[in-house]
């Protein structure tokens, strides 16, 4: 009994990471209808930036966030202003193709710079620290922190969307770009801010990913799939839905792995397909305007 409880609990905690993968994707799609195929590779890029920060400056991974988050946000702003804004229009295909190209460029760039060797961020003693939740159930300090951070990120986004001027700018632009412009909103700047925010979240996700497991330049696309699945399960446009989607995906994978180690990914995909078949709009779709 505690065995299964433990499995589900670990799944929930990893779901926090998937929710962070998904939140950035969902934000970008929501604000500018852009499907960012390079999202997973940007997560890996953030992991490598963290790797450089930890090895060259001697920071521990969590502290390196104070460098990685602003760096990724800047990259996001520049990427949107310099490249992606030019691809946006009535046609969904150009941004799809351009971000697909970007994905290939990032993978190969990282391969050239860092080789295909697996890397990992070393977080020191905190990696092996645990908290006892109940008799026979232990939780690692890092997965716990990761989940708390994920909840904080989602809650922060929710607050930002509904309580700040920037959030209202995001929602207004998402609702009607042309009218938003007539109300004085510089939509190119709004889009760039959305991408900056998305990549700031990617930075956090990338660092936790890199502390948790080995990474190399090729693992981005699989993270993209996890992110997509979490978004679809939760329902497009809903931030808390994204967290639920991540958790469901994490739990499904954990249960799959418990039955047979080879079933981990399969179980996640099956959970995704079942939800897509039964409830294609996702669990918590945004109320449509």
């Amino acid at each position: 009994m505690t065995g299964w409880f433990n499995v589900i609990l670990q799944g929930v905690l990893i779901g926090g990471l998937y929710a962070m993968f998904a939140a950035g994707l969902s934000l970008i799609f929501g604000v500018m209808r852009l499907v960012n195929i390079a999202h997973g590779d940007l997560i890996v890029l953030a992991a490598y930036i963290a790797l450089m920060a930890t090895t060259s400056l001697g920071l521990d991974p969590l502290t390196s966030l104070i460098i990685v988050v602003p760096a990724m946000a800047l990259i996001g702003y520049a990427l949107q202003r310099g490249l992606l804004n030019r691809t946006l229009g009535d046609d969904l295909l150009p941004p799809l193709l351009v971000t697909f190209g970007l994905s290939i460029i990032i993978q190969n760039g990282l391969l050239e710079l860092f080789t295909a060797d697996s890397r990992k961020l070393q977080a020191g003693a905190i990696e092996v620290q645990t908290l006892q939740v109940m008799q026979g159930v232990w939780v690692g300090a890092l997965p716990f922190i990761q989940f708390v951070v994920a909840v904080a990120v989602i809650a922060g986004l929710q607050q930002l969307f509904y309580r700040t001027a920037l959030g209202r700018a995001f929602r207004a632009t998402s609702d009607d770009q042309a009218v938003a412009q007539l109300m004085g909103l510089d939509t190119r700047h709004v889009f760039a801010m959305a991408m900056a925010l998305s990549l700031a979240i990617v930075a956090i996700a990338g660092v936790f990913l890199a502390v948790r497991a080995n990474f190399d330049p090729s693992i981005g696309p699989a993270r993209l799939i996890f992110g997509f699945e979490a978004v679809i399960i939760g329902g497009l446009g809903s931030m808390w839905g994204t967290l639920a989607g991540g958790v469901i995906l994490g739990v499904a994978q954990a249960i799959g792995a418990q039955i047979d180690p080879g079933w981990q990914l399969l179980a996640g995909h099956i959970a995704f397909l079942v939800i897509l078949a039964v409830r294609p709009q996702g669990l918590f779709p945004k109320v449509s305007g």
Partner: protein
Amino acid sequence: MASILSLENISKRFGAVVVADGIDLALDQGEALGIIGPNGAGKTTLFGMATGTVTPDAGRIVYDGADITRLAPERRCRLGLARSFQIPQPFSGMTVFENVVVAAAFGAGESERAVYDRCADLLDRCGLIDKANKRAGGLTLLDRKRLELARALATKPRVLLLDEVAGGLTEHECGTLVELIKTVRAGGVSIIWIEHVVHALLAVVDRLAVLHGGKIIASGDPHTVIRSPQVEEIYMGIAADA
């Protein structure tokens, strides 16, 4: 009197359809100008060109002495040029108050906190204060039209372009709207108003222009213009209402 907005020799065609054929139109500071014309005469496109969502093929648009022909819509809004849409286009997922706050904060370049009072006051003037926290997507037609106006006013316009705000309203609703537009005008805002409901228009405007086939075919004192042979020929009968 100096003109605040002028369209100079503006031309625009969509494929074979000419919607503006060398239009010259100037709005004086503080003036209220009405524009009438049959459907498809190019009235709404004129507003699109003035606010920057439609680029003219030829000609120049001058606002407050500066050429704004190539200026982005959001820059024009911040300079004080606002419009309403014939078919209201609220940000439907946001509340009525949020709609106005976004327009006030970004359109007038102020912080959100600084505009709350002004927005509440505006909603009160536009008769929407009771619905401030309702989702804009769920409003009735009248309320959507009121919101269009409130949102345009929230940007602190110096020139307000109204696109058929009275259409589809009852006589009483229309009267309320006319009173509101009069107070806006009294506040020093220059207005161009496109309208089919001629009696509402005549209650407000100083000058009336008639747009037909992409040209201004008559312009001058509203009561003279409305009785002119050109207008009677285009409208046949509608002029009798005036």
